[in-house]
């Protein structure tokens, strides 16, 4: 039973001494195996007793992987959101084979062509834009930009932010002071403002956008991780690791990092949706990947001049964008419920 509920944890508290010794034992007999696997699945925010209790219990628990997928499968939201994203990613990757047309093919015969369900013409499923390009094809190709930026920016900013947060939290003192003041300064500037200024100055390109997005959100991770590390640093299992001669690097990566994974994965999954929306806003302002490459934000902007005659040009890409972010949020919420029921809203 890996699903440790509150009452069980608190029931264990009086007997904490026993659990402690169980952990100590695990620490000495098998310092890298069972003990670490056990600790890694405990909720990092929980207090010392909680961690110890979960660690103690988990020694007899079934392998974590199985239970994770088991629980994941039962979360309808997570599965639904995940499937949507999977299909979208496959469409984006194989856009050359699955898209009905060419995203940059201009055909003025189909200029502002209404979508298929209006029954006027059946060639373009979601209609044509102001240059007679197929909106469906462009939406599929546009997914490449949104998903690439969303994933890479979260990955890069996550790595940088987590590293800085680990350093700040573990070493404290001057390191902490410098990193966290930097985060404070950046937090004082609205992220969209910073992104607009940076892209405006660096010039819009896929590479620059990924850099700018990563720069815009690293401090969320740094602050989260730092907070978690501060409470973990004082706990007994870290002290134990230090006593048996673990180096700082080893303690940070083998003992602390596994304990902060869960909230980080949840945070990262939420940030993907945020980055996709931010990218679309920049694209809308003309600061995204430059045309003719289709991006959802610029497609929405394309329709601005035709709101009265052809509103589908603006609404269709927006609908896809919204559904994607919704799927990301569903997936993130589901993941949170599975990994970390305590955070459930």
């Amino acid at each position, binding site marked *: 039973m890996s699903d440790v509920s509150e009452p069980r944890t608190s029931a264990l508290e009086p007997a904490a001494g026993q659990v402690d010794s169980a952990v100590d034992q695990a620490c000495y007999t098998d310092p890298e195996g069972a003990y670490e696997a056990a600790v890694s699945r405990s909720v990092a925010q929980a207090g010392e007793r909680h961690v110890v209790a979960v660690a103690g219990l988990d020694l007899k628990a079934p392998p974590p992987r199985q239970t994770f997928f088991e629980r994941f499968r039962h979360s309808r939201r997570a599965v639904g959101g995940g499937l949507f994203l999977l299909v979208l990613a496959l469409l984006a990757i194989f856009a050359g084979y699955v898209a009905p047309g060419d995203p940059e093919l201009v055909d003025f015969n189909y200029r502002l062509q209404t979508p298929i369900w209006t029954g006027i013409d059946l060639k373009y499923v979601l209609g044509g834009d102001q240059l007679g390009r197929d909106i469906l094809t462009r939406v599929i190709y546009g997914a490449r930009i949104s998903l690439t930026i969303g994933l890479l920016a979260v990955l890069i900013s996550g790595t940088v932010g987590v590293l800085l947060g680990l350093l700040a939290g573990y070493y404290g003192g001057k390191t902490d002071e410098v990193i966290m003041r930097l985060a404070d*300064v950046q937090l004082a500037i609205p992220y969209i403002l910073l992104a607009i200024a940076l892209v405006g100055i660096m010039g819009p390109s896929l590479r620059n956008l990924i850099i700018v997005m990563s720069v815009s959100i690293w401090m969320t991770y740094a602050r989260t991780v730092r907070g978690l590390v501060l409470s973990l640093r004082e706990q007994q299992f870290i002290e134990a690791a230090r006593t048996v001669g673990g180096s700082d690097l080893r303690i940070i990566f083998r003992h602390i990092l596994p304990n902060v994974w869960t909230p980080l994965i949840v945070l990262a999954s939420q940030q993907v949706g945020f980055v996709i929306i931010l990218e679309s*806003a920049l694209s809308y302002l003309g600061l995204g990947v430059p045309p003719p490459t289709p991006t959802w934000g610029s497609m929405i902007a394309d329709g601005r001049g035709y709101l009265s005659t052809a509103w589908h040009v603006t609404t269709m890409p927006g609908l896809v964008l919204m559904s994607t972010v919704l799927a990301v949020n569903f997936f993130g919420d589901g993941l949170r419920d599975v990994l970390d029921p305590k955070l459930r809203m």
Partner: protein
Amino acid sequence: MQRYIARRLLTMLLLALIISILVFSMIHLLPGDPIDVMFGDVRDPVAMATIRNLYGLDQPLPLQYLTWVNNLLHGSLGLSFRLHLPVSDLIMERFPRTLMLAVGGMLISLLIAFPAGILAARRYNSWADVAISAASLVGLSMPGFWLALLLVIVFAVRLHWLPPTGYVPPWENAGEWLRTIVMPCVTLGAIMAASTTRMLRSSLLEVLKQEYVTVANSKGLADRRVLLRHALPNALIPTITVIGIQLGQLLGGAIVIERVFAYPGMGLLLINAISERDYPLIQATILVFALSFIIVNLLTDIAYAFIDPRIRYE
């Protein structure tokens, strides 16, 4: 409390100084030259050098920065390269308009979020709760500028109730003014309401589970009184944090929304300033945004102390 506020104001000045240095170096060190932009294809080296000298752009960077700070301390934000107007005049004209959008958006979001969040928490798991939760998730997943365009399609293009773009000062025509700012405010408010509702709902649910609420209920107090007098104040702390963060981001979000409605506020000013490399204007707008953001954070922290008397700042 006074000492706390004084200390915070001091940190605020320090933060503003660091931000100004960062913004200054960011703008000047990254590629893009305002004189190049100004001259376009007409490349006249003599004239370009003259202009460069006129704006002090031929000076070493640290000196340029010190000049800028010195002018700032004397109450001058410099001249805009492109508009040839004092930057402070431009900001004095534009900032209140953006502030109006932010405050209007804030009010609308509170008007939506409070009833919705309370209703959802009170009728937990009912159809109303499910509907409200779903709506706020949709709101969280929607880009503001797209919602703005949808509103334009419905209320301006189809129904002809509201003008799609533009701005009329309130002292010229109050009715028209209201009609021009309704859609931008509703857009900002709706997006913001989504996260506030979620936060209020979840923190209320958390509070309603606690023992003192059970005690209040068993004393025979009316549900309404338990909710409003006992539970709500405690649920407000996390909610206010979210509102504070949002108000700051709202100022940022207004940049994009202003573009949709061609609303002549700080956002449009900044976007144009960036595309034209108008250094003094970019520096000043970002600094003003950052300062308002810091002030909002300070006000949020002070608001905690008023709502929860247990919070004391020393």
